[in-house]
């Protein structure tokens, strides 16, 4: 048995001296770890829900536009040579894409009107990128040039239904006003109220004819590939020339990106506070332990343990406590996270009108093993750091004074 081995042995055995105190401290640290793992997994689940809602409702993971495109620009920016772009996408293996023509418009129904974005889409392509065509609650998607599909909420507010007609007004490519009657063939309900009220869908050819933009599209949306986006975007930017603008969803929806960053920062602050509390708990326990065993440290010093050896012993006890809490916390936390990953928490009452919860109102935990490893690492490092101060005071004491301690 080497010095390190007996130090570790002593550390673990010393924890059993005051079982209740050790158990309480370990339980407190483990509970903090469980909370962090659950919060972290729910936060990750929330982010994934927000991202999938954002990308699956409209954006896709990547969009290609003509150079100069800006999300809020009213004028239509068309995509040059769309066939060449689709050819490049197929060559790169990015086959889940949807060509679109988007324009701003106004719909009129009797005395009521609403400002909307007109989506000219090819239904088969759109289904590979977004969920709108899977969320048809009445009728069917539009096939003919003068057919349109609108949101259920919009239809209700305008007092319209499947088979009714409405008038759509817009500008053609040259700024000339255009107006045409369309028949509603279907109603959709994504769950994102703002989207359902402000977006209507037409066949691509229908919108092209309506705004005098035959053969033109304004964007291509590409679905998530499963892998990281950055390399895909790099490949696309290398393949496409300066006439094109390739954007990730993060650039197109900066509000979501910022919200995720804000959540991460809040979580980091929470982690900091929790670990500070954990550290204070360990310092408190280790200080008590050190004070109670002053005499014993004197004996060990008399036997020939160096100050570094005594410091290692006290630190090992703090680490042993951290390790046991880490194991208990991880087992419990992972079990709870796995349960929440399977069954989730039903947040319908809180999220029914939330724009980030169109896909589901059940928040499911997403366990990231890197988070588990990092949280455990933090626990052990905190235990080590928290044990240093009591260890230092134990190591620096005069052995004779320690031996006279009651």
């Amino acid at each position, binding site marked *: 048995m080497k010095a390190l081995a007996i130090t570790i042995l002593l550390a673990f055995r010393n924890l059993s001296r005051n079982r209740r105190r050790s158990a309480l401290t370990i339980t407190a640290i483990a509970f903090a770890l469980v909370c962090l793992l659950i919060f972290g997994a729910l936060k990750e689940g929330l982010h994934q829900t927000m991202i999938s809602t954002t990308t699956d409702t409209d954006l896709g993971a990547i969009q290609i536009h003509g150079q100069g495109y800006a999300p809020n620009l009213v004028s239509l920016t068309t995509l040059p040579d769309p066939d060449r772009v689709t050819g490049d996408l197929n060559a790169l293996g990015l086959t889940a894409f949807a060509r679109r023509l988007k324009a701003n418009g106004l719909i009129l129904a009797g005395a009521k009107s609403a400002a909307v974005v007109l989506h000219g889409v090819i239904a088969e392509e759109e289904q590979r990128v977004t969920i709108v065509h899977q969320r048809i609650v009445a009728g069917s998607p539009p096939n003919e040039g003068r057919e349109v599909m609108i949101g259920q909420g919009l239809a209700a507010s305008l007092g319209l239904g499947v088979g009714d007609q409405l008038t759509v007004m817009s500008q053609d490519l040259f700024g000339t006003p255009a107006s045409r009657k369309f028949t509603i063939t279907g109603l959709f309900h994504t769950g994102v109220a703002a989207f359902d009220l402000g977006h209507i869908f037409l066949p691509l050819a229908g919108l092209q004819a309506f705004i005098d933009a035959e053969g033109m599209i304004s964007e291509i949306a590409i679905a998530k590939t499963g892998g990281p986006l950055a390399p895909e975007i790099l490949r696309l930017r290398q393949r496409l020339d300066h006439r094109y603008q390739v954007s990730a969803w993060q650039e197109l929806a900066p509000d979501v990106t910022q919200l995720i960053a804000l959540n991460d920062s809040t979580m980091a602050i929470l982690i900091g506070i929790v670990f500070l509390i954990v550290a204070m708990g360990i310092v408190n326990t280790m200080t008590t332990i050190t004070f109670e065993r002053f005499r014993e440290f004197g*004996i060990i010093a008399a*036997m*020939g*343990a160096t100050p570094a*050896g005594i410091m290692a012993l006290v630190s090992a006890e703090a680490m042993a406590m951290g390790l046991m809490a880490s194991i208990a916390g991880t087992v419990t936390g992972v079990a709870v996270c796995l349960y929440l990953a399977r069954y989730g928490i039903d947040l319908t009452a809180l999220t029914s009108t939330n724009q980030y919860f169109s896909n589901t109102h059940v928040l499911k935990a997403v366990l990231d093993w890197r988070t588990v490893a990092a949280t455990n690492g933090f626990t052990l490092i905190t235990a080590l750091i928290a044990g240093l101060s009591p260890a230092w005071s134990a190591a620096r004491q005069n*052995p*004779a004074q320690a031996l006279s301690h009651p």
Partner: protein
Amino acid sequence: MSTTTPLITVTNVWRLFGILRQDRALAGVTMSVDSGDFVCLAGPSGSGKTTLLNLMGLLDLPSRGQVSLLGHDTRDLSLRQRAIFRRAHLGFIFQAYNLIPVLSVAENIEYPLILNGQKAQERSRLTRQALDLVGLNDHRHKRPGQLSGGQQQRVAVARAIAGSPPLILADEPTGSLDSETGAALIELLLGLNQELGTTFVFSSHDPKVIAQARRVVTLHDGQIASDIRPERQP
């Protein structure tokens, strides 16, 4: 006149306590201990016995004066160097046994050997040998709390002698034992002194224990009142 270097030399040692150093535990003590001695520091409580033992054992630093061990001046040794010196050359026996309660009897004896870097096989042999000497080999796996006071003190003796240090310091080794067990312990220490040549310096205020010492240094108010070698009956 002997030319061998004394094992311990204490020269004009003072130990003062208090913020103003107003309390004198030792006041100008000078003495030496030769190899193979069996010395008792006698005197009433507060006379400075424990303080002198602590200084001899490098557990404390003198306020003034010099302590030399095995010919080494210990004044400039760091905490670490003093610890290393202790583990290599000194053994300790305390009044309150001072065993580590979470270690077994054998592990308590092995602990200083581990610190001293002894190999596992050698440690095992030395531990068995030390336990044989104190007659506790059957209790090697027990925890100190499972032993009587006398047995615990014998374990403390085994721990002190296992590494065969040239000097063992014992502070009131019989103080917590009944007179019969105390006498048996002193017999044990005497036997080790005679068989192994180990030097013992121990403190006591028990006349029966003092009577068994070959040299008695009596302290009074932090100073040596007498230093005698009583005639021992064969």
